[in-house]
């Protein structure tokens, strides 16, 4: 009787650990991508968008508007890669400063930097996978 309950307990625990291991694999990957992305952010994004994603006045938009970022998720790889020249509205303000393109960034680097931005400054967008970025880039206008 005692052995049986021990057996069932161990089995349940194993299933629980296995289930969580799958979950945390994505968490680990998100963390890895974000660390790589932070370095890229410092090089390519931080001058304009700021160390805390705060932007600068009405010149450069902040990266703290989660609603905008979530709504534009499929467009974000294109914006990073090709820049943006049409005005955008963020947190009620219109920004019309042209964002320069970053043609040197590879798809995986775009996944890194978006994972960093998407999980910093109060954003919770989870992992941007390489596949997701490649798919989005293929659909850029």
């Amino acid at each position, binding site marked *: 009787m005692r052995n049986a309950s021990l057996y069932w307990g161990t089995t349940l625990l194993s299933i629980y650990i296995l289930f969580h291991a799958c979950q945390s694999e994505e968490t680990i990957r998100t963390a890895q991508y974000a660390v790589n992305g932070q370095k890229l952010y410092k090089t390519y994004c*931080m*001058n304009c968008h700021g160390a805390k994603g705060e932007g*600068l*006045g*009405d*010149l450069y938009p902040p990266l703290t508007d989660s609603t905008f970022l979530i709504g534009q998720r499929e467009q974000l790889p294109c914006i990073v890669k090709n820049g943006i020249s049409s005005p955008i509205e963020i947190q009620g303000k219109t920004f019309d400063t042209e964002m*320069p393109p970053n043609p040197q960034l590879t798809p995986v680097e775009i996944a890194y930097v978006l994972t960093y931005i998407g999980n910093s400054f109060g954003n919770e967008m989870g992992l941007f996978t390489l596949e997701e970025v490649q798919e989005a880039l293929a659909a850029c206008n």
Partner: protein
Amino acid sequence: MRNLLFSLIGSCALAVSFGCNNQTSKTLPILGSRDPVTKVVDGKTVTDTLYHSIPDFRLLNQDSVFIDNQQFENGVYIANFFFTHCPSICPTMQRNLLKVYEKYKGDERVKFLSHSIDFRHDSPSVLKSYAEKLGVTNDQWQFVTGAKAAVYNLADSYMVYTKEDSNVPGGYDHSGYLLLVDSNRHIRGAYDGTNDEQVQLLLDELAILLKEYE
């Protein structure tokens, strides 16, 4: 022996207090080259030092008005060199200078002077739009443009490196220094505008410099 010990302690205490005094009455150096000038005054030969100073300038500001050194002679000012569509160091430098501007907004003893090194693109109207979007709401911070030679030569006298270079992002290479200039056109401090610690040093030393005018 005991006397010796006392005098030793005494001189140590004196040294410490003297050291402290030096700290509180710190004056900023005058940066740049200095030339000895020898002249005859009342039949005696006197040697004086001629300090490096900012030469005369006349540049167009964001309101299409010519401004010159006179606008900056009633206090101190902070100068830098930038261009509006600069993708590299300028936004960081201007973000940091904006903090200083916001702290001294309304204090007419402190002025700000940003020179555009993009003489092709940065017309007064472009500078005006940039200033407004940055958050500059009064004439304490001036944005100026001028002929390439005028601005680039002026950069040399501010000891700032500027160069047109198609190989760098944005097309112009330059250093991101913030220069603290006194009412006698002398450079009293140079700070890396992209480095938070250096910008804090600027804030500290600006306060020290302003004490000279109290």
